[in-house]
C-alpha cells in the first residue's frame, strides 16, 4: 500500500496508537452455559470466541489416550464473515490446521495435564472478526475459557503479535500493518516465569534486532496478562455476589 505510513514522524501509527500501545481489550467469561468454560474476547476489532469442554473421557480414538496425562484437542476456525471477502473454507485448510497445532502446543505447555490422566480437554476457538493478531487473540480467549472451565494452569498464557518498522517495535499489530510486509513476531508467554510457550516469526529481520523485538513482545504480553487478570477477578466477584457470599 503505497503512501500509507505505518509509523509517522511523531510516532503515531495508522490507528493513532503509539508504538508500544496495545489495542483496547474487552472480555467476558462464561458466555455459554452449556459448555464447561467459555469466553469472548475483543482486541481492537478482532473478535474471538473460545469454548472449552472437559476434562472428560476420551471420545473417538481410544488408542490416543495417554496413561499419565490429558490430551488437549484444539480446533481453530474462522467464521465465513470474519474477513473482508467471504471465506470459502473456514476450517480444514492448511493454515487452520497449523493454527490448531500451535494452539495445542501452547496449551499443552501451560495446562497441568498430569492431573487428568486418560482424559481429553477440547478447546474450540472461532474468530468472528479478523483484524490482525488472530493467533494472539485466540490464545488470550482460550486462556480465559480454560480458567472459566476450572482447569488448573501453571500461569496465564498471554500472546501478542509485534512488528518491526523503522527500527521500532510496534506492539499488537492490526491487519493493515500485518499485510504491509512488516516482519511480525507472535509470542505466547507465561508472564510470571518469563517462559515462552510459542514463538513464531515470518518475514525477514536482521539478527541484531531479534532481541529488541522479543523484549517488546514480552512487555506487551505482560500488559495483556494484567488486563486478563482484571477480567478474571471481576468475573469472580460478580459470581460470588450472585451466590450471595
Amino acid at each position, binding site marked *: 500500500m503505497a503512501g500509507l505510513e505505518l509509523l509517522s514522524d511523531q510516532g503515531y501509527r495508522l490507528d493513532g496508537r503509539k508504538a508500544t500501545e496495545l489495542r483496547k481489550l474487552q472480555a467476558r467469561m462464561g458466555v455459554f452455559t452449556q459448555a464447561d468454560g467459555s469466553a469472548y474476547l475483543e482486541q481492537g476489532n478482532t473478535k474471538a470466541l473460545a469454548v472449552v469442554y472437559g476434562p472428560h473421557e476420551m471420545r473417538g480414538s481410544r488408542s490416543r489416550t495417554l496413561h499419565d496425562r490429558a490430551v488437549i484437542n484444539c480446533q481453530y476456525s474462522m467464521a465465513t464473515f470474519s474477513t473482508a471477502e467471504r471465506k470459502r473454507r473456514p476450517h480444514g485448510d492448511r493454515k487452520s490446521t497449523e493454527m490448531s497445532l500451535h494452539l495445542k502446543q501452547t496449551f499443552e*505447555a501451560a495446562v497441568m495435564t498430569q492431573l487428568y490422566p486418560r482424559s481429553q480437554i477440547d478447546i474450540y476457538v472461532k474468530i468472528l472478526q479478523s483484524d490482525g493478531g488472530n493467533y494472539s487473540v485466540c490464545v488470550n480467549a482460550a486462556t480465559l475459557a480454560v480458567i472459566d472451565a476450572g482447569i488448573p494452569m501453571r500461569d496465564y498464557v498471554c500472546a501478542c503479535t509485534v512488528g518491526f518498522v523503522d527500527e521500532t517495535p510496534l506492539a499488537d499489530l492490526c491487519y493493515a500493518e500485518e499485510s504491509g510486509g512488516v516482519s511480525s513476531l507472535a509470542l505466547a508467554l*507465561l508472564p510470571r516465569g518469563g517462559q515462552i510457550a510459542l514463538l513464531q516469526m515470518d518475514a*525477514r529481520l536482521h539478527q541484531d534486532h531479534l532481541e529488541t523485538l522479543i523484549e517488546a513482545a514480552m512487555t506487551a504480553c505482560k500488559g495483556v496478562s494484567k488486563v486478563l487478570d482484571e477480567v478474571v477477578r471481576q468475573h469472580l466477584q460478580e459470581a460470588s455476589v450472585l451466590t450471595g457470599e
Partner: protein
Amino acid sequence: MKDTPLSNCERDFLLKAIEEKKRLDGRQTYDYRKIKISFGTDYGCCFVDLGQTRLSCSHMFAIVCQTEHLCTLSSVFTVRQSELSVKLNRQLERCLRNSKCIDTESLCVVSGEKVWQIRVDVHTLNNDGNLMDAASIAAITALCHFRRPDVSTQGQEVTVYSPEERDPIPLSIYHMPISVSFAFFQQGTYLLVDPCEREERVMDGLLVIAMNKHREICSIQSSGGIMLLKEQVMRCSKIAGVKVSEITELINEALLNDRKARKAGGKCGFAESMPQERITALKKDETPVEMTDVTETANGIIQKGEAAPQTVPSPVVPVPGVGQVGQGLQNSWGLEDDDEDDYEEEKNDNSGDEQVEEVTKMDVGEGGLLFIYLDSLM
C-alpha cells in the same frame, strides 16, 4: 502406518547419553551430519542427503492465467495430509514464500493475465530425522538450479521457446533461506543441532530458525510443548548464523561443480552421482588402531577372566523323531524312580512311531536333556 513406540530403556539410554554430551553417531552437540547434494539431468531437479535422510526435489512450471501479476509458489510435501506433513509444508512455505527469496515480479509474462507458476515438489525418500532442514536445503538448491524457458511477448501473443531454440533463464533469487533445527531435551536443559530420528523421538520440542547468510532471520518457529527462555533463543540464533553460512558455502560449491560438469559436456544426472561401490583394490590402508601390545593385553585379560562356560554338546538323534542334547540330571521332583523310567521309555517309543503327533514340549534342565519332538509329517 503406526510407528512402533520407543521402548523405555532405549529412551532412558538416549537421554542419559545426551546428559553426558554424547550422541549416537559420535557427533558434537552443534555438528551437522554429512550433506551431499547431487543434481539430475533436468534443471531444477536435485537430491539431498543429510546423513541417512534422503530427499528429492523437483519442479513443475507452467504459464497460468492469474488476475494478480505475482506468481504463486506452492510447495507440496508428502501425499498424506498428516500432521507432520502439514507442519513441514507450512514451515517450508513460510521459509520460502514469506521471506521473498525469489523475485516474483520477474515471473510475470503478461501483466494482469499470464504469469509463471512454479511448484516445488519435495519427496521424502528416507526419513532419518530432521526433514525440515533437508527439505529447505533441497528446495532452495533446486530453485537456484532451475532454469525456466525463455518467452517473448508481442502484444497478447506469447511465444515460449524450447531449450534448443533459446537458452533457458535462471530464476532471480535474492537470498537463500536455510533452516536450522534445534532439539530440546529435559525441559530445555540440553539442546542438539540436527537431531537424527532416534533423538527426535525422545525430544521435548523443536526450534526451527531459518536464516540466510546475511544474518537475516527469515522465520522462527517453536514447536512441541517446551518453554523457552529469551537467552536460549538468542543463543540458538547465533549458532544458526554460523551453520547457515557453512551450508550456503556447500550449496554454492555444489552448484558450481554442476555447472562446470555441464559445460565440460560430461555426463550428469543421478546415475552418475550414485557411488559405484565396487571393490577395486585388495589392499587396505593401515587402520589407525594401536596394535603394538595387543597380544600381551589380550593374554592378561584372558587370564583374569572367568573360565568359559561349558558348551552344550551338539544334539544326538537316537531315534528318528527325537533329538537329545546332553545327558540329563537326576530328576528332583520326588516321584518314584521306576515310574519315572517307564514314563520316559514310553515317551521315547511314542515319538519313534509314525504318528501325527505334534508335540512341541521342551524339557530343558541345566546341561540336561533336551527332547525335541518333531512333527512326524515333516
